[in-house]
């Protein structure tokens, strides 16, 4: 049933209907409303049985999730920004041990300077941690991705991050359908762990692996991640046939078939980009959007196929790799056929909104050759401010 509800609340309801046995989380903006919602549902008994663990930090939260998951419990946590970095030590443990933990990342910038607003720096900083990373384009998709995330995690024995734009989605009130309990139960059967810690039947999970086998273990992990691409597409197809709407999957193309230029992006900017594309098409400009829903594993074939024959792609990066360039843009450049000219731009860092006007101007600038090729371009940079600061720094002499 559609309800007009805040994104965070809808995600909390959806997670609760997935019946996690353990939730451990530490509050941090903009994720807090999600775990507050779950805390309420545990308090009222609407989510039962569930152990809601009050922990002292994000590190504690993920560590508790690792323990609970290894003991065979369906386990959930959520975080943002530096909270995710505080989990960083434990993130590869969760994936290395093959624990099907689901985590919401309410995407937020990384400090310093401290900034509570949205970009993708937090999740992309952990792209190599061995977790699946799925990006929601809307609150409806955020809800749907949580159902799919538990299904995928448990099918593949791998942890999954569901990434949703902080504030822009988490704090937006929109019409959202959270599937009813019986429908969720049918889609997501009770968790049947492959192995678990049981004092009566002891096993070791997480033994030390030396040089003799370490490469093989990592190779198998990487192979399993690649193989997950097929499952991600399959679970999205199952979801669509069950719930009647398209959510999740690998990539989301929009009007790209004859497109002369395609915007490539992740997250809440996709809806905005779709509106821009419709407006441009009315003016006779053949634009399209390629949404990346699954960022890890990287859907190389799907992206390559989608961009085949497209003359120009513009990658909208909502995070940068300082000292290197872009993050999403590098993946796209390594993927696209030589016939596609890839423009790599930075936009919407630290809560600066990705607007329709900004995206429209970007497309026009690329079409008219006004954007320098080959270099990472900061679309919404205030060049006056930057130039003043550069000049000031040049004047400072070090004694």
């Amino acid at each position, binding site marked *: 049933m559609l309800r007009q509800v805040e994104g965070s609340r809808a995600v909390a309801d959806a997670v609760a209907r997935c019946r996690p046995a353990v939730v451990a989380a530490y509050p941090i903006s903009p994720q807090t409303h999600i775990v507050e919602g779950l805390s309420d549902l545990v308090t009222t008994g609407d989510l039962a049985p569930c152990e809601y663990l009050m922990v002292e930090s994000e590190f504690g939260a993920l560590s508790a999730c690792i323990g609970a998951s290894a003991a065979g419990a369906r386990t959930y946590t959520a975080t943002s920004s530096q909270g995710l970095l505080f989990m960083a030590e434990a993130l590869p443990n969760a994936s290395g041990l093959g624990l099907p933990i689901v985590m919401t990342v309410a995407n937020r910038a990384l400090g310093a300077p401290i900034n509570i607003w949205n970009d993708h720096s937090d999740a992309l900083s952990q792209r190599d941690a061995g977790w699946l990373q799925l990006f929601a384009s809307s609150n409806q998709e955020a809800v749907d991705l949580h159902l799919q995330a538990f299904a995928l995690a448990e099918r593949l024995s791998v942890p999954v991050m569901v990434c949703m734009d902080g504030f822009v*989605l988490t704090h937006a009130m929109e019409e959202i359908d959270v599937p009813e309990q019986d429908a969720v139960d049918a889609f997501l059967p009770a968790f049947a762990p492959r192995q678990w810690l049981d004092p009566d039947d002891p096993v070791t999970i997480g033994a030390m692996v030396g040089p003799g086998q370490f490469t093989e273990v990592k190779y198998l992990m990487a192979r399993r991640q690649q193989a997950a691409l097929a499952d991600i597409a399959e679970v999205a197809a199952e979801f669509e046939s069950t719930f009647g709407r398209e959510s999740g999957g690998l990539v989301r193309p929009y009007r790209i078939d004859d497109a002369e230029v395609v915007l490539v992006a992740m997250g809440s900017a996709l*809806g905005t980009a779709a509106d821009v594309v419709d407006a441009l098409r009315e003016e006779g400009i053949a634009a399209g959007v390629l949404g990346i829903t699954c960022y890890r594993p990287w859907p190389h074939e799907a992206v390559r196929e989608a961009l085949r024959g497209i003359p120009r792609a513009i990658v909208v990066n909502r995070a940068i790799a300082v000292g290197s360039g872009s993050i999403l843009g590098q993946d796209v450049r390594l993927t696209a056929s030589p016939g596609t000219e890839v423009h790599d731009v930075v936009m919407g860092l630290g809560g600066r909104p990705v607007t329709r006007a900004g995206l429209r101007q970007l497309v026009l600038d690329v079409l008219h050759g006004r954007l320098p090729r080959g270099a990472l371009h900061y679309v919404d940079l205030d060049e006056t401010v930057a130039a003043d600061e550069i000049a000031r720094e040049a004047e400072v002499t070090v004694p």
Partner: protein
Amino acid sequence: MTLDVRIHGRGGQGVVTAAELLSLAAFDQGLHAQALPSFGSERTGAPVVSFCRIDDRPIRSHDPVDHPNLVVLQDPTLLRGGGVLDGLADDGVVVVNTSRTPAELAEAGLVLGPGQQMVTVPATELSWRLLGRPLPNTALLGAVAAVTGSVSLEAVHRAIRQRFASRPIDVITANLRLAEDAYAVVIQEQEQHHA
């Protein structure tokens, strides 16, 4: 039908709640709606902006409303900071919380284009009388209902009941009354204008 609303107020005036209530009311009427906060400094008294999109088609964009059809100004002292009327449609409407006359507001910087319209409602005054506190947002939503017609007073009332369900009954009643009184003030204003 598209109604893009931007609400300007100060931290503590219920700026974000106003956008949420308006989206609830629109949804209640079978329309699509989206309420977006613009989180700046969340300090009491600091300028705060929120947005509400209402449409008869599903809403996909998640960018801030930069070309509103309707601006709600919860505190006219914000005119000094500028930007309140930025991007307002040529036939746009500004609903202002004030006891001052349009002429006095023009003096304060509220200068509109030829096709733009101003509606004033003493929401803070009404709120002091009914709530005993300066919380102008529900009154202003009554005014918005009167101005736009796309969201009814009844829908605003249902939104207030839904959003404030856990609050004491006298708080709910006072807010319902605030919306109703402000609605009546604006309807009367408009009738005088057309008479």
